């Protein structure tokens, strides 16, 4: 039996589901599935311009593991680009850092330590945790 994968810590899940190629009449090939840890890897490395070591520390994984995830997402993106297939964000072994949501005010927020779980705007109790 294989070893169980450690949870990777991500700051936030993407707020949309994926990408679709333009101008294709019929669907070609299979959808490419990018999981959340891979999304976070490309976000940290190429959008926020962190080094791989820094990014690995943020996701609480080792540097080689991070490099492996990053490699894999680059290949997946290249595959989707060249073959013109859709990209979907889905699944993965992830833990999302503590963010809370208030459906009344339509906001996402963090809670400072030693405070009660209340929405900062409408002051009602928060029920939905981690997106």
């Amino acid at each position, binding site marked *: 039996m294989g070893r169980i994968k450690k949870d990777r810590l991500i700051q936030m899940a993407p707020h949309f589901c994926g990408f679709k190629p333009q101008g294709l009449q019929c669907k070609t090939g299979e959808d490419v599935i990018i999981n959340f840890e891979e999304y976070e890897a490309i976000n940290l490395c190429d959008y926020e311009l962190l080094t791989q070591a820094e990014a690995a520390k*943020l996701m609480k994984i080792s540097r080689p593991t991070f490099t492996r995830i990053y490699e894999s997402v680059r290949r997946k993106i290249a595959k989707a680009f060249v073959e013109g297939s859709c990209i979907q964000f889905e699944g993965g072994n992830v833990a999302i850092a503590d963010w809370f949501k208030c459906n009344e005010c339509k*906001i996402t927020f963090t*809670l*400072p330590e030693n405070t009660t779980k209340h929405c*900062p705007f409408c002051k009602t109790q928060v029920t939905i945790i981690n997106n």
Partner: protein
Amino acid sequence: MTFAIATTDNNLKALVDPHFGKCNWFFLYDTETNQSSFIENSASQNQENAGCDAAGILLDKNISMAIAGRFGSKVVDVFRKNNIQMVIPETQQTISEIINQIK
């Protein structure tokens, strides 16, 4: 309690900026004294660490809540360490709308 909003322009009809570090202005508001002010974000043109520098400016002003469309991972780290609340509105809102919500 003082809170800071990252905004695109320096008037009350300005929208919340989609990215914390790269915004042009910060709007500071004190809920107890009702005092407000705009400060320019001198770090907005930085290639690297714009968010952290901007966070440093705001930490000097003793804020307890920051509002922006998106926070970079380094900024999230800094704010969590300093126990500052971060808020992300899901819809596009102007400064005055947010002030009304908090009151």
